[in-house]
């Protein structure tokens, strides 16, 4: 796999040099980075150790998701329209993954001490990072595009299928340089150190904007006549990147190619190239500064918010059963408050989930209140649970750290109940990231749909916590902050987000079902769910901690 990638990069030698990158250095940087990615790390409690397998699992699930897209693509007669829809979904998914998971790779400062003293220019450094990300994103995109590609091959003659895979790769590059472009634009206005803080918020805002743009599409998809509609090209079609990519594939069909299609297809080729020139040749100045500033972020004194700390302590003492659990809580709270990479992985999901909910529910914006009130049972429960579920990312990010070697402490301490550390940390994440959001949406929900939804909201809350706890009980136990953030695992979160939609939908369905019963039954089930939750926490605490490979 690495060999194939390096071969492809060698084909790009001229363009890379033309962009101002040093080809020899980029090649060795990429080779080394990919070699590192695929070597297994013998850390204290490594549970993986099968990195290629991780990537293959991801490939499989993305391909399964692609199967759904293939069905949609196949059923739409107009190629241009079908492809535009397909590329819209693809670009949004890619953007979501890049924003939430690969941003940290662009601004990674862990190897500053290794790379910055060497004679590498900004362009080389940036380009090597972008190509490194492109490797993983290209992989994800190809997995998603595999089955739709087969649909194209069956349905469309000519070299359309070749153009299609070219367009898929171009779409990842386009999305990657567009997001990086936004970051750099902001870095010009904001100074290095503050920029790092702002990136997190930019991620949330960008996530929302991209999804908001995406909102246009389901509205078109709504019409039943979609299958037989022919896409008309308006002036704004030229501003919509997925339609460029669709047009590029269309040119491979040989028939029905108009000047408009050719123009759109030209944009699909020109924009990734000119965007790369703009970004790498002209905007990469100061990239070193952004990286350099990050080295010293820990030099700043930490401000402690006294009043907030008190409240949090009260809650902690109330729901933690042992001192070890409290210690786990404290560790998780202190670490997640300051770890930028944690924030960058978690915060965007709140934006995504919110817009996801809006996209799926499609409330009438002109008549928002009435349309929300008129929402049917299933939709409103889906809305509540999907937003509540965003907090689960915080729990799934708990194992990750940049300093896995610090995990020696868990082995060196005379500690028996390692699992209490985990349960305490999980509790703190639920209280910090799930509870507030859920309480906040409870208020408008009760106001919109009346007090009669209260039992369902209660049950929904317990249901979400159970959904978060079940995977923890099924997987190998991983203590907080002991796993390195591996390149292969990036892309996993977006994948989990997509598939957890199904679980959330099931939960919402159950809530809907329960709303048809008398209220007392729902309360009874809620009490049962609460009991189950307590039981699950107890089971989590009872789990034995087995370090799979000892520290060497």
């Amino acid at each position: 796999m690495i060999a194939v990638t390096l071969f492809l990069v060698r084909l790009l030698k001229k363009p890379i040099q033309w962009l101002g990158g040093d080809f020899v250095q980029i090649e060795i940087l990429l080779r080394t980075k990919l070699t590192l990615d695929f070597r297994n790390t013998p850390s204290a409690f490594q549970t993986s150790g099968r990195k290629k397998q991780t990537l293959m699992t991801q490939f499989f699930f993305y391909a399964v998701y692609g199967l759904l897209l293939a069905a949609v693509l196949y059923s739409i007669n107009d190629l241009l329209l079908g492809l535009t829809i397909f590329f819209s979904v693809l670009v949004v998914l890619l953007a979501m993954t890049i924003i939430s998971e690969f941003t940290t790779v662009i601004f990674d400062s862990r190897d500053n001490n290794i790379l910055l003293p060497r004679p590498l220019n900004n362009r080389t450094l940036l380009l090597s990072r972008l190509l490194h990300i492109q490797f993983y994103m290209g992989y994800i995109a190809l997995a998603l595009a595999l089955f739709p590609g087969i649909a194209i091959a069956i349905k469309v003659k000519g070299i359309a299928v070749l153009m299609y895979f070219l367009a898929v790769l171009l779409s990842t590059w386009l999305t990657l340089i567009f997001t990086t472009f936004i970051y750099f634009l902001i870095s010009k206005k904001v100074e290095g150190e503050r920029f790092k803080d702002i990136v997190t918020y930019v991620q949330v805002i960008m996530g929302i904007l991209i999804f908001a743009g995406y909102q246009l599409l389901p509205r078109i998809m709504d019409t039943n006549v979609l299958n037989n509609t022919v896409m008309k090209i308006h002036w704004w079609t030229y501003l919509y990147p997925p339609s460029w990519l669709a047009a590029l594939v269309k040119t491979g069909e040989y028939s029905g190619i108009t000047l408009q299609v050719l123009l759109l297809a030209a944009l699909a080729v020109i924009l990734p190239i000119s965007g790369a020139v703009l970004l790498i040749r002209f905007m990469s100045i100061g990239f070193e500064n952004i990286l350099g500033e990050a080295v010293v972020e820990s030099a700043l004194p930490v401000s402690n918010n006294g009043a907030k700390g008190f409240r949090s302590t009260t809650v902690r003492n109330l729901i933690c059963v042992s001192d070890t659990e409290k210690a786990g809580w404290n560790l998780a709270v202190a670490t997640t408050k300051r770890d930028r990479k944690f924030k960058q992985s978690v915060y965007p999901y709140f934006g995504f989930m919110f817009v996801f909910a809006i996209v799926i529910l499609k409330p009438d914006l002109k008549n928002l209140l009435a349309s929300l009130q008129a929402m049917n049972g299933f939709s409103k429960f889906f809305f509540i649970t999907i937003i509540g579920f965003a907090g689960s990312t915080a729990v799934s990010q708990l194992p990750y750290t940049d300093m896995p070697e610090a995990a020696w402490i868990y082995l060196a301490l005379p500690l028996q109940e390692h699992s209490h550390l985990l349960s305490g940390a999980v509790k703190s994440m639920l209280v910090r990231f799930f509870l507030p959001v859920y309480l906040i949406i409870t208020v408008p929900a009760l106001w919109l749909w009346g007090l009669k939804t209260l039992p369902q909201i209660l049950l929904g809350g317990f249901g979400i916590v159970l959904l978060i706890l079940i995977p923890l009980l099924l997987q190998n136990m991983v203590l907080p902050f002991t796993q390195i953030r591996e390149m292969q695992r990036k892309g996993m979160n977006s994948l989990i987000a997509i598939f957890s939609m199904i679980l959330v939908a099931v939960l919402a369905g159950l809530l809907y079902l329960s709303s048809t019963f008398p209220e007392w039954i729902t309360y009874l089930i809620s009490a049962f769910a609460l009991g189950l939750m307590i039981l699950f926490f107890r089971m989590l605490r009872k789990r034995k901690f087995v370090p799979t490979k000892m520290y060497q």
Partner: protein
Amino acid sequence: MISVRLQRLALDGYYLNFGKASMGNLLITIRGLKKSYGKGASRNDVLKGIDLDINPGQIIGYIGPNGAGKSTTVKILCGILPDFEGEISIFGKDLRTQSLEIKKHIGYVPETGALYDLLTPNEYLNFIGALYKIDASVLDSRIENLLSFFCMEKHADQRMDTFSKGMKQKILITAGIINNPDILFLDEPLSGLDANSVILVKELLISLAKDGKTIFYCSHLMDVVEKISDRIILINNGIVVADGNFDELKTEKADTLELLFAQLTGRHDNEINTADLFNGIKRN
């Protein structure tokens, strides 16, 4: 035995024909160097105006208490922290605008074991060498010679994540001089090394300096600094508080560098502190 090994390195053309021609010219000039982290109330001034002129062929011991700004200075000089106030020129080139040219001729040995430890020494050193675009055959013989100098040749193809701190340190030092630099910056180069390796590195530094290279290193090992440095620069609270060779710096009261250090940086009340500390531990 060390001298034999050093000779072998020299035969490799390793540190011959360099530097001597430029003797007498200023190699590094630093004017009004300031660096701070953070803004507003949380602003932390680490360097508050450092002026230094450094000649080639010297070993400079850069010392100071923890947090005095030693590592920050070194990181600025080798381009890891590009954002600073003041003027720095190295080889007569401006560090801000010509850092790429400068970086080709400097080496850096970081304080923390920053290397890709999933690689083997051979892989890592080849990677670093390739970034400097060293000719493959030259690079191969350099790696071989340097590894055997540090008695690491039998570990050349083992992954470094199993290495001890000292073994990693040897690889870091090797990576720092792989490009045959004219100036070598070292941040605590002796940390983790065994006694034999300390002698080895000291000899290496001395002979590099004899050959016209400039060594700029931070250390807490006062006796080593005292012995091998041509010039000692002591910083405290972000400013230079003493600068000269050991004979110039020592006074009647402070005739070792350790005492001098304690005198100048205000750490002579150590005894009282330790007593308090022990009482504190006993009470709990």
